[in-house]
Structures are given as structure tokens and as C-alpha cells.
């Protein structure tokens, strides 16, 4: 490091970044906390139309509001379902990919494709695949012209078609579609990280295990998974953080209304914030702080657990 004669130079280089960060990062942190604790803060408060007092009013409003509870429930449910499913699936895929030679790079490229997509765009493709086209769907005089390719496949194997996302569809059908789509979307990143981890594992551990006659299953559970635990912890943490911020994939499938009925029954935390941002900024801020709190706690728990589990 060089002791620069002109220390102001460093600040000059940093100036653009610091100015922008002060306006768009530092100020929002203070302001959001401030707004969140101003009871009943809304778009009129900004122009001084309404006097407010400090308190937990916004938090109480948010927690009491059924829409927020739904959003919180959906977000948690999607997290709890998609993170384990996608992690385990990605792990199995990565281990398989790592054990083959021909076509390995080709398959790896294919598996990465969902990453370079627009989650709203491909969400619309998923919606089309699950979509029933016709009229009065879910009603008495139902008239179906096509039940969607997924239902076609289900029928081909002798199953009953399901109303996945159209009006009248059940909550769990909606959740299933979301889980399928989110897992599909989450696989590439996880495969990339886990495969990278596998490839950096010293091959000698496997040779040593082979000389000792270790079964495939034991190699997987006793060697591969423990050696991969830092990467597993990483994909689980980023998976949870991403899961709590789920929003655009739902827009892709259900549209800006966050559901098929107009009641925002598939709303998420971010969706809730987004919905309140231009009117009830106090509530939006309170919800954002709650979201931050949850992400913070989950990350800390994850770090704590992974520190206990990965000790080398």
C-alpha cells in the first residue's frame, strides 16, 4: 500500500459512489425506520398534509391486516418447500454430472439455461403450460377447449386433470405450480455452485475411499456431503434470502394481481410492500423492516448451524 501524498485524491475517486450511496442507500435506511414508526404515515404525509405521531401503529396495522398475514404465510411456505427440494435435487444432479465424462459439459450448459431467463417471461410460459383455456372454468357451465399440456400429460398417464391456476383453482394447486416453477428457476445456480464444489474436492479422498471398499452410498453421505457442506450452506442461505424476496415469479404466473381471483391470495412479502408503496408508506416501511428482520434471523440461524456442522 502506498502512503499517498494527496489523500484528497482517494476521496475524489470515491466521491461519485459516496454521493449516490448517501442519497439512495444511507438516507433510505434512516428514513424507512423513521417512517415505519410514524403512525398512519401515507402519501399525504410526505407533502405535510397530515400530522402523525411516533409509535408501533404501522406494525400493528400490518400484522392485523389479513393480506399481510397471507403474504407472510405464502412466503414462508414457498421458502420451506422450495429450498430443500431444489437443494437436494441440485445436489443429486451435481453428483451425477460429476460422475460422468461424455456429455457432461453439454448437460451442464442446458441446466444453466433457466438462469439466463427473465422470470416474468418464463413464468408466462409456465402459466400457459398449466392453463386451462375455455369459458366458465370452475363454474357450472364449464366449457374447456384445452386443459393445458401438463394436464394432457397427466391424462396420458391415466390421471385426473387438475385446475391449476384458473379461477376456482385450489390454494394447494396454486402453491404446487409456484413450487415447480421456483424450483425450476433455482436449480441452475445451485447446480453451478455445488458442481464447482465437487470438482474442487481432492480426488484422492475418493481413491482412498475406493481402496477401503467404501460403498457408493457411504461415500456420498460420509465424504461428499460433509466436504461439500460449506457450499451447501451457501446455497441454502442464498436460497432462503431469495425465497423471502419472491415476487416476480408470481407476477409471471398470476399477473400483477398476485392471484387468479383478484384477492391477492398468492401475495408475498415483497408483493405486499410493492402494493403499499405509493399509498401507505408507513405500512410498507414496517413490512420492509419485518422482512429485513426475518432475513437477518434466518441468515444468522443458518450461519450458526453451518458453523457447527462444517468444522474444518
Amino acid at each position, binding site marked *: 500500500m502506498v502512503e499517498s501524498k494527496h489523500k484528497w485524491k482517494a476521496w475524489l475517486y470515491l466521491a461519485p459512489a459516496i454521493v449516490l450511496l448517501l442519497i439512495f442507500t444511507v438516507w433510505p435506511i434512516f428514513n424507512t425506520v423513521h417512517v415505519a414508526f410514524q403512525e398512519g404515515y401515507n402519501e399525504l404525509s410526505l407533502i405535510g398534509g397530515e400530522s402523525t405521531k411516533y409509535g408501533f401503529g404501522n406494525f400493528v396495522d400490518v400484522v392485523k391486516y389479513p393480506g399481510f398475514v397471507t403474504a407472510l404465510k405464502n412466503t414462508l411456505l414457498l421458502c420451506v418447500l422450495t429450498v430443500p427440494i431444489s437443494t437436494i435435487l441440485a445436489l443429486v444432479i451435481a453428483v451425477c454430472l460429476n460422475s460422468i465424462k461424455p456429455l457432461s459439459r453439454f448437460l451442464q450448459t*442446458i441446466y444453466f439455461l433457466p438462469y439466463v431467463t427473465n422470470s*416474468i*417471461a418464463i413464468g408466462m410460459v409456465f402459466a400457459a403450460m398449466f392453463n386451462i383455456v375455455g369459458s366458465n372454468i370452475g363454474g357450472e357451465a364449464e366449457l374447456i377447449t384445452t386443459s393445458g399440456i401438463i394436464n394432457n400429460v397427466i391424462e396420458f398417464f391415466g390421471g385426473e386433470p387438475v385446475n391449476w391456476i384458473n379461477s376456482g383453482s385450489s390454494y394447494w394447486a396454486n402453491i404446487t405450480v409456484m413450487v415447480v416453477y421456483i424450483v425450476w428457476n433455482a436449480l441452475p445456480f445451485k447446480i453451478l455452485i455445488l458442481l464447482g464444489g465437487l470438482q474442487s474436492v481432492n480426488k484422492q479422498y475418493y481413491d482412498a475411499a475406493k481402496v477401503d471398499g467404501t460403498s457408493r452410498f457411504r461415500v456420498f453421505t460420509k465424504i461428499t456431503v460433509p466436504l461439500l457442506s460449506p457450499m451447501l450452506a451457501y446455497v441454502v442461505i442464498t436460497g432462503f434470502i431469495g425465497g423471502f424476496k419472491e415476487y416476480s415469479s408470481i407476477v409471471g404466473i398470476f399477473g400483477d394481481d398476485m392471484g387468479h381471483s383478484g384477492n391477492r391470495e398468492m401475495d408475498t412479502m*415483497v408483493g405486499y410492500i410493492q402494493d403499499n408503496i405509493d399509498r401507505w408508506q408507513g405500512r410498507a416501511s414496517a413490512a420492509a423492516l419485518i422482512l429485513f428482520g426475518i432475513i437477518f434471523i434466518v441468515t444468522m440461524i443458518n450461519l450458526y448451524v453451518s458453523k457447527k456442522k462444517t468444522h474444518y
Partner: protein
Amino acid sequence: MADNMNVTLQEKDMKKVGATQKVTGVFAKILCYTFLFLIAIIVLFPFYWMIISSLKTLAEYKLSVPTLFPKEIIWHNYVEAFEAANLGTLFKNTVIVGVVSTILSLVITVLSAFAFARLEFKGKNTLFAALLATMMIPGELFTITNYQTVSALDWKDTYTVLIVPFLVSIFYIYLLRQNFMQIPNELYLAAKVDGTSDLKYLWKVMIPLALPTLISITILKMMGAWNSYMWPKLVTNDTNMELITNGLRNAYSDASGDTNFPVQMAAVAIVSAPLFLVFLFLRKYIMKGVSRSGIKG
């Protein structure tokens, strides 16, 4: 210990053991490939469905027994999608916002990373740690106030509002700083001895050496502009100021008011295509950048 080692296998046993281990090996390989191909089909199927659906007539799309390849290829769906969703304007907006914000962002990132990596000033480490700490906070928390700020500044419906709030990424500064730190300091000292200015050194030595990281940042930033949805929707009232992803949710209805799915799929394909092309040519940089960042553009 030596006495216990007379557990020799008979030759017959040995042959049998050799045969079984070969069979299980082949079986595992077959199982592995079957699984991987199945996953590949599942991964690829939505893309396939998007393309063939975008080329069908609405009538064919609605057939109760689906066709796996369009009977008649309707290229016109693409023209219709382009016009109906105002994709031309949105495309232009996205390119302008993407290019300008990438260039400005690179300049800011390079200058800041250089200051943090090579210059000595008071409070450097504290400042850097404080910046890293803000990475913990979800972006949504900033959005609320930023929305107020840009409203107050009367920036709504301008390119400025789409570009300026996201110019500084602490993560990119961090990434580039790490890269800069790996460049031996002797090079900088040598340049100082030769009387090279900081900026010239930065331009001639640091930037070429950190080029892969800069390319990764460029791609991720462009992908970010291409995929941004929430912020443009929030700060634009004029649909001519939206970005490409916003256009996707525009209505694609036929005369009777039903959704024209093939045209909708054509729009999706148009929006997806550039990302695919970029991926095709710059796969290495994208995968490298992503494995280090873990953020979706």
C-alpha cells in the same frame, strides 16, 4: 498383525466379485444418464413449448389434443406481438438504460475499487466494512424511500429515474477490489517510480488485468436492466417509458377479448432471445460471474 492377514480370496470368488462390481458400475452409469436426460428434458421443455406455441394459430393452440409441432408456421405472431406490446419503444428504452447505466456504473466501480485497493486514507477500513454491512439489507427496504425521493425530485417518467438510483453496487466494488488486490503492489510502485499517474496506471495496468471481472459485471448489469420489472412499473406512468419486461404483461387479446396465447408466447420469445444469444457467446463469463455473486441480475 501379520498373522491375521491370511484372508486370501479364492480365485473363483475373485472372478465373481470382479463381474458383479462391473455390472453395478454399468447399472449406476445407466441410471445416472437416464436421470440426467430426464432433468434435461424437464429443463428444456418450457423453452420448446414457448417456441412451438408462438408459431401456432390461436385455433391450433386451443385444440384439446395438443400438437407437438405447429401444422402451419405463423411467423406473423411475432410481428403482432412486437406491435401490440409496443416492444420497439420498450426495447429502445431498455438498451439506452442498460448501456448508459452499465458504462457509468463501471466508471464508478473502477474508481472506488481502486481507492479501496491501492490508496491509503483515514477511515478506509471502517468505511469499507460499513458498505459491506449494507449488503445484508434487502433492496425493497430502499425502494420505499427512493420512491419518495425520485417523486420529490420530479424524476418520474425519465431515463434518469431508471438509471441513477442503481448506479452503485457495493457488491461489484467488493468484487473488483478483491481482483485489484491480487495484482502485485510492486507493479504500482514501479509505475510510481516511472512517474506514471494513478489514472494512467489504472487504465494501462489494472483494468486490462481485471478485464474478466469487468466483463462479468457488464453482463450482469445488462441482464439486470433487461429483467427489471418492479422499479420501472413503480416510477413510470407513461407506458412509453417502461422497460422491456413490463411490456410482457400488456394485453394480448384478440377481437373477442380472449388472450391470444400464441402472440403472447411470441412476445416472451422475443424478450428471451437476446439473453440466450448473450449466454451462447459469453457463457464462460456469465457462469464465472454468477458463481461468485449469486445474484440474479
